[in-house]
């Protein structure tokens, strides 16, 4: 049973458990179907290369969805997220092999924002192949 993390148990600098997310072409096809985003740059290598990309790339929204899992797993209640924003700075290139790509997510509490509202800001770091793929990925979370 899920329990909600308490504001008093958290300090600025607290590190969240990191997460590793493997991404293959199959992952992207499944995400396309579930999200309704069928842009061919996410599944058609020929098309992706024609528009100047190195290969098929992951949906930015897939990466954004993966990154916030670090926060929702930690907070206990995914409904605790009150604000979440990212910039899409680098694509996650997903080659057509059995390995695909790997998204690495880590996060830490950057600040306790409001003792009354029990909100904290979490800053995330999201990389693939050793490079940051999201700019300023941040969430504001309301704890118990």
């Amino acid at each position, binding site marked *: 049973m899920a329990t909600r993390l308490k504001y008093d148990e958290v300090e600025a600098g607290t590190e969240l458990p990191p997460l590793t997310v493997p991404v293959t072409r199959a992952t992207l096809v499944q995400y396309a179907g*579930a*999200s309704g985003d069928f842009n061919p740059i996410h599944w058609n290598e020929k098309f992706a290369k024609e528009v100047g990309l190195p290969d098929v790339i992951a949906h930015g*929204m897939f990466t*954004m*969805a993966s990154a916030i*899992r670090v926060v*929702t797993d930690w907070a206990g209640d995914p409904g605790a997220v009150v604000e979440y*924003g*990212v910039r*899409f700075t680098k694509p996650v290139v997903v080659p057509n092999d059995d390995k695909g790509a790997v998204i690495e997510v880590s996060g830490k509490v950057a600040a306790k924002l409001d003792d009354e509202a029990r909100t904290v800001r979490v800053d995330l770091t999201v990389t693939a192949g050793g490079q940051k793929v999201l700019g300023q990925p941040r969430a504001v979370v309301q704890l118990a």
Partner: protein
Amino acid sequence: MPLDQSFVGRTYPPTEPYEVGREKIREFAEAIGDANPAYTDQRTAKALGHPDVIAPPTFPFAITYRAAAQVVNDPDLGLDFSRVVHGDQKFTYIRPVHAGDRLSVTCAIEAIKSMAGNDFITITGTVHDQYGGHVVTSTMMLVVRAAEGE
């Protein structure tokens, strides 16, 4: 041609309601590889104080993005979608989306900027439920890359 600044502030009519189903949430959660039981198990969701299973934080994008087609395809605005890249995305939540919600989106153009031949257009999607309650606002910045030769 840069996008017309006079479109800033333009608001589009609310979309027909999108009904959020439990199985759609499950499908989405599986697609992002997220096994959090709040998305699939009603008992867990209720124990956390939600009326039904809730949707992952980025789920509303599927609805707001579809709604933004009104802006993207507005012939008066004349945006060339083949040159569009998703630049930034932000969500501000009043509460999480849950199964049973009937969500309507009101899109507005918040900002248009031009730099080095690229256009940057910020579109907000304000999401309301069937009772008129504000659920979440999506703020999406699209980059329209300069056409070749410009």
